[in-house]
């Protein structure tokens, strides 16, 4: 069948199995060239193996919860949305969450995802106590910081290439409410945005949305958004009546493929201007529900179709503190000059926390994420952005990548060769392989 990631590019012909129990899972794995697939929210070809894609949807059980520590033991196919639905009403929230709740625990561990609190709490790895990992022979290994620590380290951020994560124990954070006290500041330039993020180190959550068509003095003008979990005392009226902000959100959906032309510079300009205006007017602090705050795009079902039939690609890199400003400036300038418009440009400051993930994406500094519809010229632009990232000692996020070259990856990240050699030594290569790992020679 045809398989792709969230960007719907590339679309590959692949064999997809969905084993229902451990024995069947073992059989799938022993067939070779296997890759686990969670909920397919990575953008490119990370979760596709043409020969042997193994869907984890039948491993969707929550197994145990300890309310004294907040530790949840669950199978890897459990969706984050389900964790929230079950535990937020009891006062628990994911300790680290990406920008969509429609991801699986396995997918979050394999990509070692980061959230808006990375600068304080680190990546997802920070809340993973242990995992059960299936190796190429079908055997299970309990891995943690103390047990099979090497395997644990390479699996966090290992993009499914070290084996199949079957179960995990993750820790949730206690919260008094499901409301977020959001403070929005507008920043007229990149410099101002970075300064605002640096100055907000104390904030639990921070992120900047960039109007990526801003040029000249306005290059990098942004909305900087900070957030804190609201306490019970802060709630009043309807919020106090619904302290965990549960309940249906209005949903819009994008039913058909929008033509890529819809996304010309003008539309993006209008979108961004609106966003900027809204933020400026609404500057200050207000309470927003967790769903709208953390998962704004989840409210628009199938929004990936907005880019039309040919799909879209995302570019996400991380840059070290020293070169971040120059690098970001060059990336934004190149993007705005190309007029290719990015619907979303998100800037986030990464913290210095040193997690256990040996192949994890986050590093101290900044990360920038941009979306582009696939059309003529996109590839050239992406190559240009790759080159700028390399010039500024940056690295790339594999969960977003759909087209990078093996050479670029190797140049960007000295860990690549170690990961590859480790995979060979530990019998993971070629037993576990994705279209991405083949392209990138992992």
């Amino acid at each position, binding site marked *: 069948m045809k398989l792709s990631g969230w960007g719907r590019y590339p679309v590959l012909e692949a064999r997809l199995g969905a084993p229902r129990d451990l024995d069947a899972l073992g059989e799938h794995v022993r067939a070779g060239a296997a890759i686990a697939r969670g909920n397919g929210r990575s953008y490119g070809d990370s979760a596709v193996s043409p020969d042997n894609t193994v869907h984890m949807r039948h491993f969707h*059980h*929550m197994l145990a919860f300890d309310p004294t520590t907040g530790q949840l033991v669950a199978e890897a196919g459990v969706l984050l949305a389900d964790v929230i639905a*079950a535990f937020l009403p009891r006062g628990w929230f994911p300790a680290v969450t990406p920008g969509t709740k429609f991801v699986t625990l396995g997918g979050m561990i394999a990509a070692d995802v980061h959230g808006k609190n990375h600068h304080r709490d680190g990546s997802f790895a920070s809340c993973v106590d242990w995992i059960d990992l299936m190796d190429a022979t079908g055997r299970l290994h309990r891995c943690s910081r103390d047990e099979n620590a090497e395997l644990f380290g390479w699996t966090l951020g290992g993009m499914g290439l070290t084996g199949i994560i079957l179960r995990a124990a993750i820790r949730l954070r206690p919260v008094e409410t499901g409301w977020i006290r959001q403070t929005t500041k507008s920043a007229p330039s990149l410099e101002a945005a970075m300064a605002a993020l640096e100055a907000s180190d104390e904030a639990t959550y921070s992120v900047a949305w960039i109007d990526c068509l801003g040029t000249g003095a306005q290059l990098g003008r942004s909305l900087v958004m900070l957030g804190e979990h609201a306490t019970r005392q802060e709630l009043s009226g309807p919020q106090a009546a619904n302290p965990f902000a549960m309940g249906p959100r209005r949903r819009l959906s994008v039913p058909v493929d929008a033509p890529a032309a819809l996304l010309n510079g003008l539309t993006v300009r209008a979108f961004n201007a609106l966003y900027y205006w809204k933020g400026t007017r609404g500057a200050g602090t207000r309470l927003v529900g967790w769903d709208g705050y953390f998962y704004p795009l989840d409210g628009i079902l199938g929004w990936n179709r907005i880019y039309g039939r040919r799909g879209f690609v995302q570019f996400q890199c991380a840059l070290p503190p020293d070169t971040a400003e120059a690098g970001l400036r060059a990336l934004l300038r190149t993007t705005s000059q190309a007029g290719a418009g990015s619907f979303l440009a998100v800037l986030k400051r990464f913290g210095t926390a040193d997690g256990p993930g040996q192949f994890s994406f986050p590093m101290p500094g900044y990360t920038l994420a941009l979306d582009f519809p696939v059309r003529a010229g996109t590839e050239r632009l992406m190559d240009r952005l790759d080159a700028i990232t390399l010039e500024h000692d940056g690295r790339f996020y594999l969960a977003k990548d759909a087209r990078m070259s093996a050479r670029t990856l190797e140049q960007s990240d000295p860990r690549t060769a170690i990961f590859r050699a480790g995979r060979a030594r530990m019998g993971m290569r070629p037993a576990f392989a994705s279209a991405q790992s083949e392209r990138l020679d992992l």
Partner: protein
Amino acid sequence: MTRKTALILGARSDIALAVAREFAAAGWDLQLAAREAGRLADDRADLELRHGIAVSLHDFDALAIEGHTAFVAGLPVLPDLVVCAVGFMGDQTASEGDPAAAVLVMRSNFEGPASILAVLGNAFEARGSGTLVGISSVAGERGRAVNYIYGSAKAGFTAFLSGLRNRLAKKGVHVVTVLPGFVATHMTEGMDLPARLTARPEEVATAIRSAVERRRDVIHVRRIWRFVMLVIRAIPERVFKTMRI
């Protein structure tokens, strides 16, 4: 208010588990009955954890008819609702050639389910309340060359449910007949089913809960099946026998 309890027979089925999640989310306690019920341990943990309800597991074989009375007597409480998802499609070609194979399909879809619902129906009648839900199939609406062994057993089960409803309606006991069309489950995995006609197990579950609450008698899942079956039933036998359908 005491919590309500639902007994689910054939609980390892995808439809049954979707029904379990649906009622658990609505706060019902569950009794999950299946062959080797221990295989449902993860499902039990999951349902209890997510929904804060109580789940018990019970070994149950629909074909072990002599044990059905004892099975019902042995339940921790007589449930308020029973959903029977037991079914077995078998292999039509095998069923054509081998009477034993055919009989297994017939017994699994008709005799076994009818037997256990008869026992439960009597217990509900004595109590004067309860709802029985039988999952039959549109395959029982007309015998087709490709699956008439399974279809004929479902036809028997559908008629049984209809009669049981007719009998118990005066006794405060309600019977729901569920006639799903195609459902994407373990049973149909790998088959090439038309998307518009194929429901997800969750849709069946939602339809069942709504039918139980609204005391509906016979439901199709995906309304379009009502019309599909209307057409299929309307074709004269003389024409039907020449068709490949």
